[in-house]
């Protein structure tokens, strides 16, 4: 029993932080939101060199053979930095579905995306992806790009895709892929929530109203404390679900993690917006990147209602 990130996990997180800082930090998602995906693609390539895109690809297929724990550590950092692009699709979902040659390409840094109805009805960011798929309950297919829809999130392009010829696939493997994608989204949400909290705390320390830093006002203090508590109790659910992902209790643990991470991150977003006031509501301030990404990811890969219903079924059957 040692339920705490290892030194290797810490090192992985720090490596990701450094690479993102080197690519421009917040300028990466800011550029992406404005249609300039160059630095985002450079980031993708550097993270691929680190091994991130092959984290869940076996060493035989040219990947790192990492664990779900490694995966959540990585996605928490991606969320913290609002890293744009179809990471969930490429890193957490597709490797469990596509054949080994495609897995190997993904490990090497090829950008892949997919739709996976009903929980992921669009192939996110297909317009910048090299490989585009559609996945059903028990099949996968290469897909072609259809119409594009604007997302609630400034960072996501929702692309309708048409599946080509379908290849049968193990439905259990696809179900597992859905769970891992949901868990990746949960980890991303926790990271996003941590960033929103950091932004709010910094701003509260410098912004003054009525002659005092607003961080002295007890009302904002308590709202921020509640965010701290919500995130601190959501995170162990994410890490715990990573540990038990392959157990028979894995699906409910993933659902609990996704629900709690979404609640905590939404609370962080609302509070950060409230602390920043109007400046946080502008597209010029980077806060909005997280404020809109959070509800989008809370909805994607299983809505809270979907995940709660799955837990209810499991608890009733117990």
């Amino acid at each position, binding site marked *: 029993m040692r339920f705490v990130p290892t030194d290797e996990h810490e090192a992985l997180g720090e490596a990701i932080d450094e690479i993102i800082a080197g690519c421009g930090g917040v300028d990466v998602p800011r550029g992406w939101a404005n249609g300039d995906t160059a630095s985002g693609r450079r980031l993708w390539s550097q993270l691929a060199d680190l091994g991130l895109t092959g984290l869940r690809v076996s060493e035989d297929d040219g990947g790192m053979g990492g664990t779900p724990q490694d995966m959540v550590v990585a996605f928490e950092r991606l969320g913290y930095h609002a890293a744009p692009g179809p990471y969930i699709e490429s890193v957490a979902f597709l490797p469990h579905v596509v054949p080994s040659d495609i897995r190997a390409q993904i490990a090497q840094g090829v950008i892949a995306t997919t739709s996976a109805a009903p929980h*992921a009805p669009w192939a996110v960011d297909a317009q910048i992806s090299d490989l585009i798929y559609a996945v059903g309950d028990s099949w996968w297919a290469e897909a072609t790009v259809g119409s594009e829809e*604007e997302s609630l999130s400034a960072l996501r392009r929702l692309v309708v895709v048409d599946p080509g010829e379908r290849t049968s696939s193990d439905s259990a493997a696809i179900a597992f892929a859905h769970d891992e994608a949901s868990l990746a989204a949960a980890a991303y949400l926790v990271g996003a929530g941590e960033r929103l909290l950091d932004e709010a705390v910094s701003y509260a320390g410098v912004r003054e109203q*009525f*002659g*005092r830093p607003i961080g002295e006002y007890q009302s904002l203090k308590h709202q921020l404390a509640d965010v701290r508590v919500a995130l601190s109790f959501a995170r162990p659910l994410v890490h715990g679900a990573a540990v038990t992902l392959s157990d028979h209790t894995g699906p409910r643990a993933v659902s609990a993690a996704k629900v709690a991470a979404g609640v905590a991150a939404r609370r962080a977003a*609302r509070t950060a917006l409230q602390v920043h006031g*109007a400046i946080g509501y*502008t597209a010029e301030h980077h806060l909005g990147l997280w404020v809109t990404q959070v509800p989008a990811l809370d909805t*994607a890969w299983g809505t809270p*209602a979907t995940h709660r219903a799955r837990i209810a079924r499991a608890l009733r059957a117990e």
Partner: protein
Amino acid sequence: MNLDLTPEHETFAAEARAWLAENVPAQRLPSMDSAEGFVAHRQWEATLAEGRWSVVSWPEQFGGRDAGLVEWVLFEEEYYRAGAPTRVAQNGISLLAPILFDHGTESQRERYLADMANGTTIWAQAWSEPGAGSDLAAIRSTARRDEGRQGWVLNGQKIWSSRAVWADRGFGLFRSDPEAQRHRGLTYFLFPLDAEGITVRPIAQLDGETGFAEIFFDDVFVPDDDVLGAPGDGWRVAMSTAGNERGLSLRAPGRFLAAAERLRSLWVREGANDPALDDAVVDAWIGAEAYRLFTWNTVARALDGADLGAEGSMNKLFWSELDVSIHETGLSLLGARAESRSTAAVDGGRWVDDYLFALAGPIYAGTNEIQRNIVAERILGLPRGERRERS
């Protein structure tokens, strides 16, 4: 205690309903915070004015119907129920006009009201400054007396000015007495937004619109004719506006009743299979009903001459939270598709747009933290404590 309409009120409501049914555009107009949408919304103001529905509570001489409070609320209910466009003239009509009626000169009323009512002149407010958001008394933009030209010279910077990108004129507070502290020594000015020395910089919003702007003032001359109220008396003049903005006038229940009804309709179409969301829909409906009845009670007391004072703060807390929760529930009902704001999405993607708009509610027109202070101190009488000053 009754909720009965007089035959006159019923006739009034029926007339409004009929006119709206005939005139409301079938297609939602483009956002009024876009160039194209602004023009379309300004045209809609003109249409409203032609029907004499743009400012029902104003005197007839300025384009109104001399309507009372009950009629005004009835009109607002009908307006939103009909799905009519957002009012691009809103800031002028609800923030500036009451001040013009109370504190303006005869000449100012003549010059500005009729054009405000028909959309010829769209007004933008210029309250906040960087460093003076909810704390308006911290204003630093200046007005320097110019005796020779019989007027004032404005300098400084305003921010969060809604509609200012495309609007025609602005109104706001400037520090005319550099010696005076806080809310003393401020003066209320009216000015054209294309005046020499004014630069308007659009600020894009979270929702992709550009409803806000910054306004920079570089030696902008304003003649005495365009001082509203007495020089130095701007704070008192402006505060009646702030009360208004937070109070009954900005948020008649129609808007929330209409949103709750859209939610109900969405739920009947989309949500019948997810009983866990039933309660949220029901609570939204209860909230809208509560808001409607609260308003009618407020109207009755206002007609009895009650001083509603700080009650506007309760109002603002309630509607801003109700609005967020209606739209969160709407997005929940949409499930995995909630994320799309495409016009091909359910209800044309407006659930996302309206959700993002609702998120701003707890911030603008005085943050909800400030409103809770007001309720606690002015309504409940709790001690002020350590805060040094507050609007």
